[in-house]
């Protein structure tokens, strides 16, 4: 067994969906015991490829070899039994059961009477946990664990099945920095044990930190498979988008005009405390802060989704009461939620139905939809957003992630609001599509709108905002102008130090 021992080989793998060629003659090798990164923009075919390996999808043509044998799994169970396991962003654990039970879910140990052999199960679970050198209580309920520990349980579950290939899809999405280090330690350890890791991430710095080789996919085609150490971040981005990115944040100097939104001393018990700020026409205000700092809750309160206890909201100088999203929309406020699949789109409905949804009441005549107008709006948006869809009637569930996000943008562009609340506008989106979305934000500003943007990505906040609010524990701990803001300053306000804006209760 030399170093070039190939465990997984793709030969001309092609996958067709109705109207879409998701994978186009993809060929490359994965070597035993390496960390192999898989990168590409949304819609490049990464997920499709993974789903073919794990038996969720069946390929249209081509061959996949695993340990020298051609494989064609019909379901994830078969793949798992053969030693290929995948850990997805949405962890597949059962919260009400213990760690030990989750690890051996589906292959419980049984004693001679056919009952569950708890003693053996706990022993074996403890062995795996010890093997990983992590601090997880095997008797704890999985629901009571944090995301990082849940992920460890998923990894343990894969190991209990003697996984040879472990696929990790965006494993760090919900992890803190320190937890990422632990994950990397585990990955390196598994490597020494001969486990092959396929690592998918949008965070290119992670790719460089952990992977041996990297495969780039673009528009369903294989672009390259290279030793990671031979690349720079710029090389990688260039290969992913197929062109050089001129600028990561296309910020333009905005002209501010009148105030369109003012929030005064907003309170919601236990969630928001004494929030005051204002937003001007033509301005982008970024809200930074850790997860749980009340950022999303602030947007929800303004949008009428959560009731507020005290405080005032003024829209264009008029005090308003917003009790429902409908009130908000009527006042010209739109919310683009953080989860496009569960909150942004009706996946069962078509592109045209989704884009039209917030505008239907506006373009209706006595309750009847004006089809011509709806068609006009949709074709305008599909063109403006460059949405790749075979037709307006395509169900949005069949679109790629980036295109889905564009449909969400399109539906609110079409509604022509004055104030846009963006919650994580570029989460889970690749570099190329991110820049497209920033350009669309600029377009909104040019059209006379104002934007309030929540984001976990500091460079994005610093790169696009005119003014930055930093939140911590439901209060605004600081307001910085674009000129005065830097990463250090924002982090200081978001994590540590004293409060600048005092708590009101």
């Amino acid at each position, binding site marked *: 067994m030399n170093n070039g021992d190939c465990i997984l080989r793709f030969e001309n793998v092609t996958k067709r969906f109705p109207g879409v060629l998701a994978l186009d003659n993809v060929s490359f090798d994965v070597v035993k015991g390496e960390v192999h990164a898989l990168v590409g923009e949304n819609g490049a075919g990464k997920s499709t490829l993974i789903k073919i390996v794990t038996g969720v999808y069946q390929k*249209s043509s081509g061959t996949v070899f695993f340990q020298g044998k051609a494989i064609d799994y019909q379901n994830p169970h078969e793949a798992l039994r053969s030693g290929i396991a995948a850990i997805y962003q949405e962890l597949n654990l059962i919260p009400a059961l213990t760690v030990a039970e989750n690890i051996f879910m589906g292959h419980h140990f049984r004693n001679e009477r056919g009952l569950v052999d708890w003693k053996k199960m706990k022993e074996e679970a403890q062995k795996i946990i010890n093997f990983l050198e992590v601090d997880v209580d095997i008797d704890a309920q999985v629901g009571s664990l944090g995301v990082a520990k849940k992920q460890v349980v998923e990894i343990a579950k894969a190991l209990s099945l003697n996984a040879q290939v472990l696929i990790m899809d965006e494993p760090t999405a919900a992890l803190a920095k320190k937890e990422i280090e632990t994950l990397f330690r585990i990955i390196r350890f598994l490597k020494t044990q001969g486990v092959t890791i396929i690592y998918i991430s949008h965070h290119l710095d992670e790719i460089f930190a952990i992977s041996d080789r990297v495969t780039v996919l673009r528009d369903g085609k294989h672009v390259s498979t290279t030793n990671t150490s031979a690349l720079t971040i710029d090389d990688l981005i260039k290969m992913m988008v197929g062109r050089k990115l001129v600028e990561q944040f296309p910020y333009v100097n905005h002209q501010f005009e009148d105030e369109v939104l003012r929030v005064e001393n907003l309170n919601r018990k236990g969630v928001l405390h004494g929030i005051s700020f204002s937003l001007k026409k033509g301005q982008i205000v970024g809200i930074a802060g850790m997860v749980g700092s009340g950022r999303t809750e602030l947007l929800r309160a303004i949008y009428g989704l959560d009731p507020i206890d005290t405080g005032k909201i003024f829209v264009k100088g008029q005090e308003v009461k917003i009790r429902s999203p409908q009130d908000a929309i009527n006042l010209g406020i739109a919310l683009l939620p953080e989860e496009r699949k*569960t909150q942004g789109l009706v996946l069962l409905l078509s592109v045209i139905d989704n884009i039209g949804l917030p505008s*239907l009441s506006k373009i209706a005549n006595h309750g009847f*939809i004006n089809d011509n107008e709806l068609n006009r709006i949709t074709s305008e948006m599909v063109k403006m957003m460059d949405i790749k869809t075979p037709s307006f009637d395509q169900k949005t569930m069949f679109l790629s992630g980036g295109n889905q996000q564009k449909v969400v943008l399109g539906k609110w562009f079409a509604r022509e609001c004055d104030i846009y609340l963006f919650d994580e506008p570029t989460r889970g989106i690749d570099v190329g599509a991110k820049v497209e979305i920033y350009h669309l934000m600029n377009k909104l500003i040019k059209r006379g709108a104002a934007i309030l943007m929540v984001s976990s990505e500091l460079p994005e906040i610093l790169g696009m905002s005119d003014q930055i609010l930093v939140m911590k524990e439901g209060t605004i701990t600081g307001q910085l102008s674009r000129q005065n803001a830097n990463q250090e300053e924002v982090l200081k306000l978001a994590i540590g130090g004293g409060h600048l804006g005092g708590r009101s209760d």
Partner: protein
Amino acid sequence: MDALTEERNQGFLHRFFIFWDKIGILLVFIMVCVIFGILNPVFFNPLNIINVIRQVSIIGVMAVGMTLVILLGLIDLSVGSIVAFAGIIAAGFQVKWGGSLFLSLVIPLLIGAGIGFFNGYVSTKGEIHPFIVTLGSMSIFRGATLLVAKGKPISGMSPAFRFIGAGMIGPIPFPVILFLGCVIIVGIMLKRTVFGRYIYAIGGNREAALLSGIMVDRVKILTYTILGTLSGLSALILTSRLNSGELVAGQGYELDVIASVVIGGTSMMGGEGGVYGTLIGALLIGVISNGLNLLGVQPYWQLMVKGTIIILAVLMDRMKRRFRTV
């Protein structure tokens, strides 16, 4: 070689399910009719056909409303009891309380609407699963029927009132016109109006619909109110046809109504389906019991056949979904 065959198979399956989605149930319906027609020529006798459609109308009118509720991903078990209660009230106004035709038509419809509103309001504002709320209503209004009727059916309607269930316009029974009218109006409403599109949006993804500014609760309540009103209409047809407000009227109807919708291809998960499928679904159920009757098959066999068809219909829906995710 293998891959090619597989691809062809997938292509075939894909086309098959698209095809099935569109007219599969219609084909089954036609096949069933042809088989019954061959086994017993009386089946295609115009009188028999009209008889079947008339019988179907009562269930059908409710199934039209139930389609909307199921499109929202919800359910209503109280329709049978609404039929009984609204029916006994109609009979009461005809026979006992002054005999006003106007009141005996309008009050039952209002009562149906009121019970529907109650179901919708309590389940949305009280955040109780509609299965529970309508299970409660089912019991409440069955009891209320017995109470109003004092344990005895109320019989003897006026000729004008009898027209609703027994009248004919040309060769076509009046209930059939009511039924088809409901199908067409609701069909247009689902496709062309904002309210119709909102129903699909809410059934497909409640959260996304809410965030898009749709008054989700209001749409749900209105939908239950529509179903309640249509159940009131069914009550008028049934009471008129029987010439009597019966205590057991509508008992078990909820099953046939839900079955019509589901056989017609509307998904119990909400968001997919439509009222034209329901039309075929209701006709299929009617044709099967009529055909089996003509063949002299005993009623308990009929129940078993009906149950089997319901399960098969949902199975097709399942397979359709599973195929789509692949």
